[in-house]
């Protein structure tokens, strides 16, 4: 593939970038229900529908549960399907999330990450999608609007790969990304469509003994996901785990191909190390705060501090090998969590990164920072404090505080 020369620079906020990418991906069906801070995505897409710019069947449903049910039905017929949600909307989809992944429906869903009630809060944190980490969806978190655009286009390729065939969540931090205008470089419609391609369907053996494409089709009837009890349910769940392993490969492959086309890539697609090679102190972060942390790393490096950052882009499937090899030579590590696991002794990202390092030959001291809940701002000065704490651990060889609530009034 040759590099696309006719890319264009435009100004889009994160939500608009997602909608634009969905528009260019030739989506057959969008079923959605509005919720802040995702609203602009579906609003913008409905304009494309009204203007006749897309051929998409646009379904306004009465709830998010119904929205995902409609997406699942559409996807089961072989249609390319997209939706978006956030916070309480995603929580209402909870049941259907498992049905969609269990039915191996490659739906792509943008989540403008937002806090969960109560108390009610519309601002950005990652409590919503982190709470769905075991729902069988691939989860990719982006750093900026450009990556939101790129990741939606990539997500269709990943989800619809015959070996993967899983739904994908692309998470962008509410307001910080969803409502903030940025320069975004977009592909031409032709190049985007060529990259995404048409949906491929694996062949499956039906009850009639015929090998037919995996879709609901009156000519070749099949029943998806009806019932499997003690004798087969377990086997179907094991298949989903295998699909996640395949997703690990596919995300990297798509990242490489996309870089060849656009010149843009995000680490290996799974993790993005930043000045990490010889780092003694490092931070693991998911989402937009990584951008601020990069500038802090630059400043620390100028002061001669061996500081680094690892942005965890793909949270599901968890890139175990990539995390371990990137982090095992660090001496002191902080893991940032923009959500809480109440009573769980730290956040979800912390648990998993620490778990991955257990088998490393030499592993760093690992501490956890809970930050930004309910959209609480994390200033560069506060984030710099994280590195200063790590340097103190490095010097003393002692961890005094395992979990810190950054920016919380004590």
């Amino acid at each position, binding site marked *: 593939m040759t590099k696309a020369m006719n890319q264009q620079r435009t100004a889009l906020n994160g939500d608009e970038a997602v909608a634009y990418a969905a528009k260019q991906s030739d989506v057959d069906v969008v079923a959605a229900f509005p919720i802040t801070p995702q609203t602009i995505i579906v609003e913008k897409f409905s304009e494309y529908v009204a203007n006749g710019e897309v051929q998409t069947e646009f379904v306004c449903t009465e709830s998010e549960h119904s929205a995902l049910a409609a997406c699942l039905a559409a996807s089961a017929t072989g249609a390319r399907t997209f939706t978006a949600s956030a916070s309480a909307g995603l929580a209402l989809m909870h049941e259907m999330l498992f049905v969609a992944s*269990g*039915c*191996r429906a490659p739906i792509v869903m943008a989540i403008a990450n937002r806090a969960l009630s109560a108390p009610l809060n519309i601002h950005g944190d990652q409590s919503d999608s982190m709470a769905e980490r075991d729902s069988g969806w691939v989860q990719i978190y982006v750093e900026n609007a450009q990556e939101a655009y790129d990741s939606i286009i990539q997500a269709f390729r990943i989800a619809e790969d015959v070996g993967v*065939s899983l739904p994908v969540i692309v998470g962008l931090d509410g307001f910080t990304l969803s409502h903030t205008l940025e320069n975004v470089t977009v592909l031409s419609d032709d190049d985007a469509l060529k990259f995404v391609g048409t949906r491929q369907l*694996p062949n*499956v*053996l*039906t*009850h*009639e003994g015929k090998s037919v494409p*995996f879709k609901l089709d009156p000519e070749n009837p*099949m*029943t*998806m*996901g*009806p*019932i*499997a009890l003690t*004798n*087969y349910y*377990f*086997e*179907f769940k*094991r*298949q989903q785990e*295998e*699909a996640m392993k395949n997703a690990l490969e596919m995300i990297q492959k798509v990242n490489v191909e996309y870089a060849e086309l656009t010149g843009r890539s995000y680490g290996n697609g799974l993790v993005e190390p930043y000045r990490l090679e010889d780092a003694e102190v490092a931070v693991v972060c998911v989402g937009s705060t990584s951008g601020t942390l990069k500038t802090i790393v630059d400043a620390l490096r100028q002061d001669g501090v061996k500081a680094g950052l690892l942005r965890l882009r793909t949270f599901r499937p968890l890139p175990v090998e990539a995390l371990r090899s990137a982090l095992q030579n660090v001496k002191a590590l902080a893991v940032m969590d923009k959500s809480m696991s109440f009573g769980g002794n730290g956040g979800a990202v912390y648990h998993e990164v620490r778990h991955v390092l257990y088998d490393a030959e030499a592993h760093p001291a690992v501490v956890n920072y809970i930050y930004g809940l309910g959209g609480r701002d994390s200033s560069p000065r506060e984030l710099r404090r994280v590195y200063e704490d790590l340097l103190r651990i490095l010097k003393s060889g002692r961890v005094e505080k395992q979990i810190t609530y950054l920016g919380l009034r004590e």
Partner: protein
Amino acid sequence: MSREKSWKEIAPAGVCSKSSVGFMTGDWKTYTPVRDLEKCTLCLTCVMFCPDGAIRWRPDLGKIEFDYEFCKGCGICANECPTKAIKMSLEQE
């Protein structure tokens, strides 16, 4: 019973590998619908209400037939029958 397959051998998403025609759900029932031919007017209300399609109208024979291999004994037919021609019986058919 045929050998149960491994996760590598089965279709994804719980796609049915066998037709439900061979799965005799009729043996779930406790009560069996029994029709009184004297009272039955062949209005076909029971045919329409049966959730399992286990009551069939045979226009060629001018009769209705109960398929006891698939009737689960729910009793909806007896409940809906306008002439009370169907009784649910504990006796096996």
